[in-house]
């Protein structure tokens, strides 16, 4: 069996098969469902680990299937895809554990977990895509798979949120499609190539290429929540917490950001993009999003909405890193892909814990909760400090490199944006911490349930603690060989080296 050709496909198929197996399960078959879920997630982790080791040792994994005349469906494991794949698979496993605990006794779990697994399939497909058409296919599949999760609760509010989500994402998908076909007609290929494949295109087509760039970025920017395309994100907070954790840390927003990375590096190429003059506008859009997201977050009382706007802001750090032409900034952007994912998912896990256990949805209700749920708040604290960029946490590494990269590329104004944003982050996160740890409780919280010695069920407690620990480790051990930081360095050298 030629593993090299089929492993990428297998990895995708696992979650697809899990999804198909879970859909018809009756609601009561809890054990079967949990075992399918966790078993699948674990198997995937193992296979991804295997693939990672293989890539490190020089194996070339690529699945290629004929799809359209002249275009193939390509799944390829290169350095960049592995970054996203490992992030997705690892966080997926944790989210599955969390979701099992969160949705205990709620209706329609089979349907939920079925679509959950479909989302994994789509995300891994996005990560492993080897050309733009494969990317497009899985990107749209992601939209379709996440919609039922948003409307899961079946209320009027969730239907409206779902509709908003669709309007944005299907519109974005249309833009992406136009851009892709136009690009194909100009260049004749869509394969992701390090440093891009467009430098050979005739000069007269360059204005068209600029428009195509805008179309592609707009289509991707919807999912990546660049302003003004971010409107769907705060609204989709009506979904259950595992869904928010998923969408905001792993799947949807990262898929958008990842797409932007691919377009700028492997379709256009960073040097070529700079020569077309599109990188500065992109940086400006990203910077505006950073500031805007943080400002809106300041005024939100609902905890999840505040976190949503924080996500809008933070994902643009990645885009900013990409848009600044320089290796340090690229490292910063790429490594933030991982770091932001880990930190944000911690925050959402904690928010979900507060909502599930104590019925807390608003920041104003959070006074004194540190005494009642200390471990959750510890994780929350680590997450927020990381977001603000405090050393030695993961967030610090990303911001440092972004700042250095900005200076290196001569874009000093970016440093101001970063500093301002950190201040704003502190502005909307620190008061929460203060209230939680130091104020007296004001809310009517339900009496202590017996979770044994723990403040809430283990399934809800452990995942945020694990991710918080990761945030610390990723910061402390950034220079270790397998860390996301070193990985990002590796990817960057491929892109920039002569």
């Amino acid at each position, binding site marked *: 069996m030629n593993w090299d050709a089929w492993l990428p496909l297998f990895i995708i198929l696992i979650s697809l098969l899990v999804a198909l197996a879970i859909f018809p399960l009756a609601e009561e078959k809890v054990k079967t469902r949990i075992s399918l879920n966790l078993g699948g997630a674990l198997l995937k982790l193992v296979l991804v680990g295997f693939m990672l080791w293989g890539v490190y040792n020089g194996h070339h994994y690529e699945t290629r299937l004929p799809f359209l005349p002249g275009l193939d469906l390509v799944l390829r494991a290169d350095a960049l895809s592995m970054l996203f794949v490992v992030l997705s698979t690892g966080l997926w496993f944790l989210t599955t554990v969390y979701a099992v605990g969160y949705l205990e006794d709620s209706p329609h779990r089979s349907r939920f977990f079925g679509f959950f697994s479909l989302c994994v399939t789509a995300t891994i497909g996005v990560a492993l895509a080897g050309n733009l058409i494969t990317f497009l296919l899985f990107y749209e599949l992601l939209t379709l798979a996440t919609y039922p999760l948003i409307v899961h609760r079946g209320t009027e509010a969730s239907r409206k949120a779902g509709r908003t989500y*669709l309007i944005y994402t299907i519109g974005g998908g249309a833009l992406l499609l136009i851009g892709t076909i136009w690009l194909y007609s100009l260049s004749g290929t869509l394969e992701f190539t390090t440093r891009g494949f467009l430098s050979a295109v005739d000069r007269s087509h360059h204005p068209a290429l600029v428009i195509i760039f805008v179309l592609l970025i707009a289509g991707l920017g919807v999912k990546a929540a660049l302003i003004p395309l971010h409107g769907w994100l705060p609204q989709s907070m009506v979904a259950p917490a595992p869904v928010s954790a998923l969408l905001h840390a792993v799947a949807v927003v990262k898929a958008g950001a990842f797409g932007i990375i691919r377009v700028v590096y492997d379709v256009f190429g960073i040097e070529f993009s700079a020569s077309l003059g599109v990188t500065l506008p992109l940086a400006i859009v990203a910077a505006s999003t950073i500031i805007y997201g943080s400002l809106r977050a300041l005024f939100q009382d609902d905890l999840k909405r505040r976190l949503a706007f924080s996500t809008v802001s933070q994902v643009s750090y990645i885009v900013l890193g990409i848009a600044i032409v320089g290796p340090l900034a690229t490292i910063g952007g790429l490594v933030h892909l991982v770091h932001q994912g880990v930190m944000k998912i911690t925050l959402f896990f904690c928010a979900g814990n507060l909502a599930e256990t104590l019925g807390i949805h608003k920041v104003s209700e959070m006074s004194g909760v540190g005494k009642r749920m200390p471990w959750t708040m510890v994780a929350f604290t680590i997450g927020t400090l990381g977001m603000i960029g405090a050393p030695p946490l993961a967030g610090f590494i990303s911001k440092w490199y972004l700042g250095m990269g900005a200076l290196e590329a001569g874009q000093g104004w970016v440093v101001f944006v970063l500093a301002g944003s950190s201040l704003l982050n502190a502005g909307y996160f620190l008061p929460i911490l203060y209230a939680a740890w130091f104020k007296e409780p004001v809310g009517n919280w339900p009496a202590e349930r017996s979770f044994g010695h723990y403040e809430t069920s283990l399934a809800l407690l452990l995942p945020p603690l694990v991710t918080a620990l990761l945030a610390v480790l990723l910061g402390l051990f950034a220079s270790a060989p397998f860390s996301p930081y070193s990985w990002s360095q590796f990817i960057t050298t491929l892109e920039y080296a002569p």
Partner: protein
Amino acid sequence: MVILLPIVAALSCFLWPGRSIWIGLINTFTIVLSVAGLSLQVVEQGAGRYAVGGWEAPLGIALVSDGLSLLMLMVTAVVGLAISVYSSCYFNQDKARHFWPLWMLLWAALNALFLSADIFNIYVTLELMGLAAVALVALAGGKNSLGAAMRYLLVSLLGSLFYLLGVVLLYHSFGTVDMSLLAQRLESSPAVWAAMGLMTSGLLLKTALFPLHFWLPPAHGNAPAPVSALLSALVVKASFYILLRLWLEVFPVASFEAGQLLGLLGAAAVLWGGVLALRQTRLKLMIAYSTVMQIGYLFLAFPLASIAGWKAAVYLLLSHALAKTAMFMAAGNILLYEGHDRIAELDRVAQRLPMTLGAFALAGVSLMGLPPSGGFIGKWLLLEAAIRSGQWWWGIVLIAGGLLTGAYVFKVIGFAFTQSNLPHESRAVPIGMEWAALFMAMLAIGLGFIAPWILSIMDTGSPFGVATR
């Protein structure tokens, strides 16, 4: 064989009404097998020609099976299989007596049409098909469906007569009705122009292209679900198929302006049908308007006048046939289950009929042209053809149509997830019906993965295999 079998079946259903269902089902399987056999033959040996009774043209009837006919036969067979399974559960004994002979007759007409090699035979089969279809529409029996059936009949006859007049003019200009001979002998002349105009108009009426689509929503919206599926998926496509053959084989002298006109009408159909579909409150009517819109897509290939464009249109046709069948079947299930098909009151169908809703959603994905599906492949090919020919504005229409489709499909799905305020009595839906719907929808998605194979079949024989202008 594929023509004889359903005729025999129709007759036997008529003679032994009690056994209708069994006769129908058995025949369905045998027809599918025959089509499969024919496919193998064509794939291996290339296009074939067969003279009925040994009498060649111009006096006898010749049958031709090339790539395009084959695909049409295959899609008819697949849809037919699903419809037969579905209908065996759908109709009660009384209605079933009438349904099966008519359905077999319709199938016979369709198969004969797709295999015809001369334009007069096409007329005969077209009429036969129309009559069977009208009778099927009237099956439901109420005031609405009878009125719709009458209107459809008059429209159908009108269209056929226009077409026939065109045939007459062609025959008298060139002395033959055989399509390949006509293609060789054709020269431009006023008679030919008139013929082309007449035949095109007649066929447009039958294909329900805007603005001649007025008869379609009542007919498709009020007929019983499997009938609606047959009409939307196959019957309107038959006249499009004829139009396609005529334009490609017999009238390569067609002008640029005529192509643009058809494209414009197609674009209008897309936008008009899409907006109206969005405004419907009843599910089946919405799906009927969706058909109007999707037919518009097919006509966007005309102004492009490139082989890639035609192939894209055929691909869209195939995916639409599968997806629309699934959608109407899903609607039929919901109608049976809820007792009504008002969209705003679908009341958590997602929970209670998950397979049906899954079928609807997957069919919707194909209609929207989202990957992965047959609809996406067709859309991609058409967009590519549009951009390459420099007429990219048709591509914009296509994209807009996709967005409109998304709007009304997801409107239904959104309501299907949420709870309605009114309580409902619900009847059980036979599992066969749900499976049929889901199966068709999955095929529509599957069509997105076998594009290279289907496209290579299209290349067999004319009209795509030979070099056109």
